[in-house]
């Protein structure tokens, strides 16, 4: 179940021990010194986009009329996508690594929180009604 089936595509999986795999691409070359390098630039751009999403999140919540709300929400959404693009590029360049959680832990939490579903107070258990006020809306 937790064997390496190559589901991460061409990504390298380093095993420093038997239980702590790393999901990471081989690092693309960049200057390693005191100078501001390409990796620093991409990190700085990511930090900027993240900071902007915070700002626009507050802005969209405070807007008065609908047209402004729509435009600011659109900008917030595109800024999130930009964050994602930069993050993906950092990952592709091998400048960002992830550590997968142990499948047994995930399974344990799935069981635990599946049990909590019995505490749902509404009979309408998560099934969205079309046209309902809180049906899913895409932006």
């Amino acid at each position, binding site marked *: 179940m937790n064997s390496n089936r190559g589901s991460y595509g061409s990504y390298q999986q380093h095993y420093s021990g038997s239980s702590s795999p790393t999901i990471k691409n081989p690092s693309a070359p960049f200057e390693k010194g005191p100078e501001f390098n390409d990796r620093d630039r991409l990190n700085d751009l990511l930090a900027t986009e993240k900071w902007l999403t915070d700002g626009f999140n507050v802005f969209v919540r405070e807007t008065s009329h609908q047209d402004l709300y729509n*435009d600011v929400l659109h900008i917030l959404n595109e800024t999130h996508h930009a964050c994602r693009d*930069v993050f993906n590029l950092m990952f592709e360049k091998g400048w960002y690594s992830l550590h997968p959680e142990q499948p047994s832990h995930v399974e344990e939490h799935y069981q635990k929180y599946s049990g909590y579903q019995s505490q749902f107070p509404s009979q309408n258990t998560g099934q969205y009604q079309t046209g309902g006020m809180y049906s899913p809306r895409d932006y």
Partner: protein
Amino acid sequence: MYRNQPAQQQRRSQPPPILSTKDDAYLTDALSWELLAAKKAHSFASQCSDNQVKYQAEQLCQMHQRHYNILLNHLSTDRQQQYADQSYPHFHN
């Protein structure tokens, strides 16, 4: 001037398309953020040696300029005039 609204005016389900003082403050803030972000991305793009990073930075620059224009449009006098005419005929003068 708000006192002069006719009493029989219809109840609105949403605010009229008029900028509030808060909208104006946020818009000018956000315009500064976008301009700074566009300049930074463009500057970084010119300094990058990796072509993919350079391309991404330039894309960001263009996105921020687009966002700047969307925001600026909300401050345009044409738009404000149009708003005022349809919502508050008595708002100006």
